[in-house]
Structure formats: structure tokens, C-alpha cells
């Protein structure tokens, strides 16, 4: 017997032999990155590997994931679309604006987007949000996973242009490599300080947690406009 538990809107825990994070597959029969398909009572669930996805890890770290069926999402750092595919599953009636600046990754993302009507790929630098102002509407969630030194500024700038007043900002923050000398707690504190500076008290941090054991040197941040 396969058991399905609803963790958050559009996000499930499927228990078949073991517990697995999953979303309902919007592109039936198709795999994106070697995950598994589990049909349960006529619904096809697609497993979601938290080790391959910061957002997946955030779900398991009990972050509140503010997504609904019709949410509009600005996704910064889409890469080849591993996580984008799950966001696309969740916001089945919404829209994902998927920004990625590496042409090589965009090639894969295009493949994904051509099979998913709610994914709108944008080849652009997330550090220049003005460059997609003619395309992107105000959104309910900005998710960012760019792993860049200026990640805090990128988030702040995009939020200022595109986040709705009642929207949320969900960030994967890559801390400077945690070497043996530095205390990880200190390193994370430093990153939060950087974020707060970039936010200029326009956004409030609601939750901040490391993403261990799924991702080393990474922290999840949930924030909203003040």
C-alpha cells in the first residue's frame, strides 16, 4: 500500500518502502533528472530529491513554502531546471519565470519549458532585473539559488521590482566555504548580516536555517516585505 501525505500545497510525502518527497507530475510519464515516478490511485507522483534541490531540502527542514496552485513565481538561477520542474508541478495553474544566465544550462531548461506551459524561460543576468522588466509581472514568490558572492544584492533588487506586497522571498544562500577554522554558525551569521544590509530594512527575515544534511555550506532564508 502506498500512502500519500500532504505536506504543503502541492507538496507530498509518498510512503512506498520509504518516505519520499514528491510533487504531482504535470508532464505525465516524463522524468527530468533521474527521479522516480510513483502512480497512486490514478495520480502520478514524481519524487523530489532534497540533495539535488535546495527548495526540496527547505521543505524537509520545515520551511513554510508559500506556494499555491495559481502562484506566480520568479525563479532566479534556474540552471537546467531540476527544481524548476517541481515548482512547475506545484503551481500547475500559475507561472514560473525562470531566469538563468548560462547558455549551456538554458539549453536544457528550454527542453523542460517546451513541455511545461507554465514555465517561461529567460536567458538573463539576475543581477540586472531591469533587463526582464518588459516580461515579468508582480509575483507571489521569488525563489533564488544563484550561489554568487552578490546573492544578497540580487535578491534585494529583484524583490524591489517584482515582489508583491504580500509576497515572499525564499533564498538559498551559499556561505563562503566553511573551512575547518571558521565556526559554521559564525559564517551563517555573517551571511545574514550581509542580507540585512542589502535589504535596507525593507524586508524582514522570518526564518533562517542551514540545509544540512542535504547541502553543506548552504542556508535557507524566508523573508517578506515589511
Amino acid at each position, binding site marked *: 500500500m502506498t500512502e500519500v501525505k500532504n505536506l504543503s500545497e502541492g507538496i507530498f510525502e509518498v510512503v512506498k518502502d520509504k518516505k519520499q518527497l514528491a510533487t504531482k507530475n504535470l508532464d505525465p510519464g516524463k522524468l527530468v533528472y533521474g527521479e522516480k515516478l510513483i502512480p497512486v490511485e490514478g495520480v502520478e507522483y514524481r519524487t523530489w530529491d532534497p540533495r539535488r534541490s535546495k527548495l526540496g531540502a527547505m521543505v524537509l527542514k520545515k520551511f513554510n513554502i508559500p506556494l499555491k496552485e495559481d502562484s506566480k513565481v520568479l525563479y532566479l538561477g534556474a540552471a537546467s531546471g531540476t527544481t524548476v520542474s517541481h515548482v512547475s508541478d506545484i503551481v500547475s495553474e500559475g507561472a514560473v519565470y525562470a531566469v538563468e544566465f548560462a547558455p549551456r544550462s538554458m539549453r536544457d531548461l528550454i527542453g523542460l519549458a517546451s513541455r511545461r506551459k507554465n514555465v517561461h524561460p529567460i536567458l538573463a543576468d539576475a543581477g540586472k532585473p531591469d533587463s526582464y522588466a518588459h516580461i515579468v509581472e*508582480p509575483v507571489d514568490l521569488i525563489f533564488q539559488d544563484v550561489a554568487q558572492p552578490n546573492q544578497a544584492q540580487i535578491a534585494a533588487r529583484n524583490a524591489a521590482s517584482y515582489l508583491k506586497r504580500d509576497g515572499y522571498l525564499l533564498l538559498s544562500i551559499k556561505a563562503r566555504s566553511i573551512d575547518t577554522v571558521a565556526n559554521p554558525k559564525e559564517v551563517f551569521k555573517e551571511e545574514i548580516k550581509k542580507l540585512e544590509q542589502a535589504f535596507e530594512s525593507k524586508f524582514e527575515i522570518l526564518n533562517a536555517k542551514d540545509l544540512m544534511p542535504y547541502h553543506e555550506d548552504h542556508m535557507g532564508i524566508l523573508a517578506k516585505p515589511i
Partner: protein
Amino acid sequence: MKINTWFGVLGIGRTGEVLESELFSKDIRELARRSIALQENMQDIPPAGFDLKAAAIECRFVESSAEYYSLLHEVTLEAAKLQVSGALTPDQRIIQAVEALDDINETTNSLSERLFEWYGGYFPESGLNGEALALFIAKYGSRENIGSEDPLYSKARNSMGAKLEAADEILLKSFSESVCSLYERKRQIEAYIQDSMGSIAPNLNLIAGPMLGARLISIAGSLEKLANFPSSTIQVIGASRALFKHLRARAPSPKHGIIYSHPLINTAPWWVRGKIARALAAKLSLAARIDFYSGEKDASLVEKLETKVQQIRASNPKPPQKKQDSGVKPKKKRRK
């Protein structure tokens, strides 16, 4: 206020209401091209929080939200495709060739070693290796087939090697043929790189030579990036492992990037190599910039560089004197 959107140019009022609109036609390709142009120009962008979808419906570009998204989807997809195919510039093709060459070299070396070990059991005295060995085996197979006109004839006669059975001979011959064809491919790729460097980066080609020039572009990621590197970076390109060590462990900063394979440096006495490397890096940087921004060939670059190198060598004819002879190892100076 006038704003640019992917579906048209709008005049909007204080509260974002659409006052006038000049809508584009619903031609996906056209819309995609416009969108890319807007992405570069960033003029008259909609104000923060502007609801594009509502405006598109309000000015009747589309009738419904569903139509808006389906059109937007096609346009973004088409624009991304155009941009990705445009990103495959000639320098990216050279990079693929350089990487293919590295892969082929690696494979050929390991297959050649395998062949050397393998055939060594049957004719250890051949003294051949690499492509020569592969050609030899492809031609003769067993050493018993060597004709008396071949210089290896007597060695083959007296070899202590084992007898090569027919089945093994077939295997070895076809394996050797594959190795030979890899050497062929290698030359083909090298010729391709030589040709393309002459047209894509003529100045870099003149100063660095095609292979070094192509490697510099490859490691930098593109000709544009190379052109934007300061010459101090060009000097250490390819020394990344050493550079990493330098950053982490404060080891002395590396001076040996791949430009050290340049004949002007590797034929120079050791004590002027650093100076020549700096001069060379400066000229390479200039050459990359000219290639990227104008593309005009400037033959005077090479002359200037050679003059400069002669000056360096003339004013440093002897190795520097050791400062002390006390037996204590002098502390290594850190380079800036």
C-alpha cells in the same frame, strides 16, 4: 509615461491605467526578437509592481489570462532559443575543439600505453611507441610478417617475444587501427584550430601561436572574457591549481601559467622568464582586446614584443647574485 513591454508600447497614467497603446502583431518570432532587443536596451521599463498581464488584457492585446500566458510562453521560449543559438559564437566552437583535442590526447595516450604493454609481450625489442608502434602493428601484426627491407627485420628475427596467435593478432591489429585513426583526428582538430584562430583572433594567433591562443580562450571561457582580463591574470591562466593553493595556504603566488610554454619564455634563461612573461602577457591582453573589439590584424605587435624581449635579455645578461652565502636558506620573497 511611456513604457516598453513585450507585447507593445504603452502610455500609462499615474495609477498604471493604460491611456494609449501601440500593440505589436502576434507573430511569435517578431515578438521574440523585440523582446531580446528590449532586454538589451532597458529603456522605458515598466515601473516596479506594474501588472503587465492586466494591461495586456485592458488594451485588448489578448482576451484572457490563459491567452496571455500561452502567448508569453511561446515568445519567451522562442527568444531563449534564439539567444542560445546566438551564444554559439566562433570562439565557442574553438573552445569545443580545444576540449575535444584534450580528450583525444588523453585517450590516445592511454590507448598507446595499453598497446605498448600488450605488444611488448610479443616484440619487446621494437623500440617503438605511440603512433609509430600503432602504425607498425597495423601494418604487420606479428613480427614474423616483417619483410627483410624493414630496419627492424633482424631484431624481429631474434626477438625473445612470444609467438602471436592468429586471434590475438586480429585483435591487436584492429586496436592499432583505432589508435592510428585517433592520431589522424588529432591532426585534423589541430588543423581546424589553426585555421579558425587565424580568422577569429588573428592578433592573438600571431603572438601566442594558434594552440596557446586557443587554450587561453578556452580557459578564459570566451574571447570576450579573455579581452577583459587584466594582463596579470593572463600571466597565470592555467596555473589554477597553484593559484588555488596560493589563495588558501598563502603559498607563493604562481607565475607559471600556460604562457610559459611560449617559445619566447621557454627558450629564455630562467632569471628573465618572469620579466618576459609580464611583457608577453601585456601584449597578449592587448592582442585579445584588438581581436575582440576591432578584429584588425596589427603586425607591429609582434615586432614590439620582440624588441621588448631583446631589451630585457640585454639588460639582464647574468643571473642575479645570491645575496648571502651563510648557509641559511634565504626567505622566499612573496610576489605582489
